[in-house]
């Protein structure tokens, strides 16, 4: 089985940034780049899959400027077999679409069974690249994968994918496929010294525009479908709220209340409950019922 993992060199967002007023970009000084956490989990998952099968190949790939090579080296120490670095001035200022497009072209000739991406990048978090690759290669996709097993039938994988509010979907997908891997699917290993040593001998192949075989207007800034026009401090919008009027349908009013759009009348201010435990318990239940929060209302 051959697995391609796309990894990204991202800004460590735990460090405070400053905006450069002139360029409207970040002040470059002191920025720290790391391997995107979800991508690290994707590499780990690929290596584990290969280990479980006893054979196979894990290829990591990145598109980015020269320093992005560091993440490839790191992925190689984590157990990937070889690496491809899409590096060319023509790839500068790619957006998610032109990044995915270029990666897809590099992946196509590799004839792999699975393609992993991290489900979200730490810095921008657009979660788009996986879907662009899948569309470019006409492959199925499953996003936010939290569990992965090879399927009962050959040529499929059986997965769990993250839904809203803690739910999971059990899903089967035919191969080849693109999966975006959720951070937390596994606990990535710490590389040992022998793993570091071994990685030094592994190959990082540089792929430029010519080698990729695409035209310069299809990649980078020229191939992008979106454009950044500003970066600034956060100005949160005012959330719409209003007090329900008496003419509104009671069910509607309750839903609005539950969604936090209005204050439940009477309880927001004043109203402190005191008394016997049993009376208080009764009042708490009443409050839960009024707000549709008792367990049976919730199943």
């Amino acid at each position, binding site marked *: 089985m051959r697995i391609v993992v796309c990894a990204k060199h991202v800004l460590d*967002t735990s460090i405070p*940034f400053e*905006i450069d007023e002139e360029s409207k970009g*970040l002040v470059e000084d002191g920025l720290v780049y790391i391997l995107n956490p979800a991508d690290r989990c994707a590499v780990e998952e690929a290596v584990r899959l290969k280990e479980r099968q006893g054979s196979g190949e894990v290829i990591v790939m990145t598109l980015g400027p020269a320093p992005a090579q560091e993440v490839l080296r790191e992925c190689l120490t984590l157990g990937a077999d070889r690496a491809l670095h899409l590096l060319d001035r023509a790839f500068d200022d790619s957006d*998610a*679409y032109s990044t*995915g497009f270029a990666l897809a072209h590099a992946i196509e000739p590799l004839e792999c069974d699975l393609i992993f991406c991290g489900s979200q990048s730490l*810095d*921008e*978090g*657009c*979660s*788009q690249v*996986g879907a662009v690759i*899948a569309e470019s290669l006409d492959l*199925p*996709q*499953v996003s936010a994968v939290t569990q992965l097993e090879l399927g009962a039938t050959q040529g499929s994988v*059986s997965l769990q994918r993250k*839904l*809203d*509010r*803690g739910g*999971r*979907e*059990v*899903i*089967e*997908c035919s191969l080849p496929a693109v999966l975006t891997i959720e951070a937390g699917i596994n606990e990535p290993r710490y590389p040992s010294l022998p793993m570091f040593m071994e990685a030094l001998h592994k190959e990082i192949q540089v792929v430029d525009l010519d080698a990729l075989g695409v035209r310069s207007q299809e990649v980078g800034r020229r191939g992008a*479908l*979106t*454009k950044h026009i500003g*970066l600034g*401090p*956060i100005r*949160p*919008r005012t*959330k*719409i709220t*209003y007090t329900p009027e008496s003419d509104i349908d009671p069910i*509607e009013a309750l839903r609005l209340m*539950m*969604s*936090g*759009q209005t204050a439940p009348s009477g309880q*927001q201010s004043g*109203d*402190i*409950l*005191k008394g016997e435990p*049993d009376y*208080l*318990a009764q009042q*708490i*239940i009443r*409050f839960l019922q009024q*707000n549709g*929060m008792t367990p*049976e209302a*919730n199943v």
Partner: protein
Amino acid sequence: MSQANEFWVVAEYKDGELQEVTLEMLGEARKLADKAGSLVGAVLMGEGVAALADPLAHYGADRVLLLDDALLAQYTTDAYTTALAELIQEQAPSLVLIGATANGKDLAPRLAARLRAGLATNCMTIKLGEGGALQMTRLDYGAQFQRTMVCSSTGTQLATIQPGVIGVGKPDTTRQAELTTVEVKLDPNKIRTKALGYLKPDPEKIDLTEADIIVSGGRGAGGPDRWPAIEELAAALGAAVGGSRVAMDLGLIPWKRMIGISGKSVAPKLYVAAGISGASHHTGGIRGAKLVIAINNDPAAPIFQSADLKVVADLREVLPATAKRLRDMAVSDEQGGQQ
């Protein structure tokens, strides 16, 4: 027949009810359409969901495009992308809004790639810029800054909207929408994933940021005669257990379950704080909670300022009493049989 430059919302629903983010997007699309002198279209996909056309109209849709098909009964990337892409190609709306939900985040980038349309994800606001270009803002760099972007593609533009940011506008129950049934031609062989089941969240394992109900304890709930009351109520409510910094220091909860500015920021529908004083370090992590019940024996505890229901009592008494009532209700419901 089709109106150019419409603003569309892809409707999402659960258990027969529209999701909150769908209502928020309708309000936003309505504002944009009014400014641009255009119409709001809502795309409703599924099987037997026509009844949702009314609420879509109440919250702002001028027309509802109904795609009713057995192959759309359950979300799959392939079916939803194909059905929507064909419709968008045919009718060329200027903007399509999709909720940044689990399914929306899967669908939007695939759809954008197929249409070769620009997509801005997790947006907070959308503005009509000069010459009708849409400007979207989103949080960037670990939510430290906000980024404004535009689509450089011509034709339809796509955006996913962060739930819970815009707020739900006032419904107008007299509004009506024109209902258009769209013919769906999907090939089942081209749907390459198969949904086999849904796993309900397990309150004991769930990440607190995903939990619907959280029961949280602090120093006041410390000690062997007290903490079990927290767990008892959590079990009765089907809630996840969390706690304050002190609860973690006392070894009652692991770090992953500490709530506050140096722990998790949570957004449950219901947050119960028992024996927690309500330091700003703690309440900073519960701003997203929709309802807060505070239980504390000190009537002056600051936690009451953040609470919707304020209960001045000893948690050792009131928590078990509440849990017992909840369990009794569950039993009598079961005995009541199928209602």
